[in-house]
């Protein structure tokens, strides 16, 4: 793969099993690879999962109609209940999908928030790409 040349490898040597007798000690190599970024894409990795936990937990609750209704009754109180941080709360208030992704939101949980707002995936696509919904649909159809 051409992309491979961008991969930076760093190796950390750690004892395989520190509790074993020293004569049996072996070393294993743990490799962490820094992957080349994919433009416009934020893989939902451990960093994102840590950052976005409260936001995603709130959005996960939207599987329940009662929770959706509770959110709509008082958005601020509901966000507080889930301890959203300021970036996450600002993203929810502004219906800012890209901001919510930056704040650790995962596409599948955020889609449940979009469902509350009555937005479908083309609406969400348009919001994220700065297009009108018609332009976004035309972009999809153009791949055919």
């Amino acid at each position, binding site marked *: *793969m051409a*992309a491979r040349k961008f991969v930076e490898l760093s190796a950390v040597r750690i004892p395989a099993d520190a509790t074993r007798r020293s004569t049996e000690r072996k070393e294993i190599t743990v490799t962490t690879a820094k*992957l080349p970024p*994919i*433009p*416009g*894409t*934020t*893989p*939902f*990795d*451990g960093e994102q*999962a840590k950052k976005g*936990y409260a936001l*995603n*937990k709130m*959005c*996960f609750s*939207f*599987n*329940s*109609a009662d929770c*959706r209704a509770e959110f709509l009754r008082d958005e601020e109180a509901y966000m507080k209940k889930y301890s959203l941080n300021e970036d996450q709360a600002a993203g929810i208030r502004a219906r800012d*999908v*890209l901001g919510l*992704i930056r704040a650790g939101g*995962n*596409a*599948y*949980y*955020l*889609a*449940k928030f*979009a*469902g*509350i707002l009555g937005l*479908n*995936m*083309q609406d*969400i*696509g348009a919001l*994220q*790409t700065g297009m009108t919904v018609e332009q*976004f649909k035309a*972009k*999809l*159809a153009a*791949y*055919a």
Partner: protein
Amino acid sequence: MAKIVGMLTTSHVPAIGGAIAKNLQQDAYWKPFFDGFLPVRKWLDEVKPDVAVVLYNDHGLNFFLDKMPTFSVGAAREYHNADEGWGIPTLAPTRGDIDLSWHLINNLVERDFDITTCQEMLVDHAFTIPLKLFWPQSPCPIPAVPVCINTVQFPLPSAKRCYALGEVVGDAIRNWDSDKKVVVIGTGGLSHQLDGERAGFINKDFDLKFMASMIDDPKWATQFSIHELVEKTGTQGVELVMWLAARAAVKGKVRKVHSNYHIPISNTASGLMALEALE
């Protein structure tokens, strides 16, 4: 011993559930998608599988980030669908096959897949919609066993690892002491991306190459890392790992019963394949 009759793979976009509920199968937008299933249903009427094993990915109905198993296997008598929050109708429960579930679980662990077992498991659109597409009657007339692969939280299992999982699932079915006919289903894909500035990304060339590989070069896509698959097929395009696992389960030569590829369904390049096992 049980027999694998073949495999079915399809996209599983939630909007399909909405279209079914509104009877939009003949609508100009949906017709090219739904018509693809007619020859597949005809084949299913002929081969009459007794049970399905469904490889799919949960999208935040059964699993949340508090506990996210890489591979999980259902071991319930019945699998319930539920409100997923995005307004698609909840479908009728699907019967399970407990005997096959535990046979798969025992075989997978025996062969070093440290799976999570689920005696209660909600199944989302990625499980229910494909069954509805293949068997439109309600409830689904045959029992099914869900096998779930994490595609929500990275690191995801590699394409190679998912293929290996499918191989064990296939071997397990073939050594299951039963006279049942089993169909293996893989759901998801093909190329699409829901999130980020790159939302709406589709890669037709890759999808068509991948579908061709399903027939006579099934390991082709296992050469790619998850990162490379995201780059080539979009964040959600990685769901093709379910297709790989299903194909690995069938093993050996296959005959193409039918395939269909249509852009777009919602934000997705939709793919459908029915392959009959020849060995």
